[in-house]
């Protein structure tokens, strides 16, 4: 039991370090393709933390959507922008003061929420029953949001085509 807890702590710190190193590389590297790869490393660390927190579904979503799809979109956006592919871009522009302010505001809000929330301890459970429970909820309790998601995706599909056809 004690070793299991110890291993969990070790995993958490190692994964946090991976996420932080990736995030640091993403904001400091001058080559944008490398910065995007740093961001992917950060995503992977966060996915690992989700596994440690036993949020298995969120972790899988993180891997499939963020590492699988969003990263591809970011890399494509870099590769089809003139100037970004040929020269190393500056990591700062004229909006850095505003961006820093918003970033610190966001941190303050999250920090406030994190210290004022009463975190209930998770009940011991086996991991294998979490996703079936989610599946059952999805087609019973959350049926309407579930079907609304398909409408949202439909709107996004049509929107993407309309914008692309212009």
């Amino acid at each position, binding site marked *: 039991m004690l070793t299991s807890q110890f291993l969990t702590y070790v995993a958490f710190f190692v994964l946090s370090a991976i996420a932080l190193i990736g995030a640091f590389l993403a904001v400091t590297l001058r080559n944008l393709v490398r910065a995007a790869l740093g961001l992917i490393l950060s995503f992977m660390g966060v996915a690992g933390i989700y596994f440690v927190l036993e949020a298995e579904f969120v972790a899988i979503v993180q891997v499939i959507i963020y590492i699988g799809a969003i990263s591809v979109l970011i890399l494509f956006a870099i590769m089809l922008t003139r100037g970004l592919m040929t020269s190393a871009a500056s990591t700062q522009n004229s909006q850095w003061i505003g961006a820093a302010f918003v970033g610190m505001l966001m941190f303050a809000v999250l920090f406030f929420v994190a210290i004022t929330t009463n975190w209930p301890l998770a009940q011991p459970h086996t991991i294998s029953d979490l996703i079936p429970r989610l599946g059952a909820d999805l087609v019973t309790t959350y049926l309407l949001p579930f079907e609304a*998601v398909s409408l949202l995706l*439909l709107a996004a599909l049509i929107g993407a085509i309309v914008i692309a056809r212009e």
Partner: protein
Amino acid sequence: MPIDYLPILVMVVVVVAFAAIALTLSSLTGPRHPTAAKLEPYESGMPPFGSARRRISIKYYLTAVLFILFDIEIIFFYPWAVLFRQLKLFGLVEMGVFVLILLIGYVYVWRKGGFNWD
């Protein structure tokens, strides 16, 4: 318990160790006779031409956007697929409605030529 994920950790360690050992052994024992042709980037056997750092076509972006949308659709299949036998016909009909709505989008993209390159 997070300890249940120990097999994943073991697999990560084995994969990293395998890659490291394979690369180290081949670089230690393999012969090294570089020629200009050998040092070229490998591109499916075709001789590479031009710079690799040129802009790519904007058309790839639509492909990426469509990929994300269908990727998100797949995510919703996962918790449903885990227990679709227990959900019986009810679950099947609900997923059918979900897919049907998205099929409208698929047909729309198809009819508008979103899958055509030109």
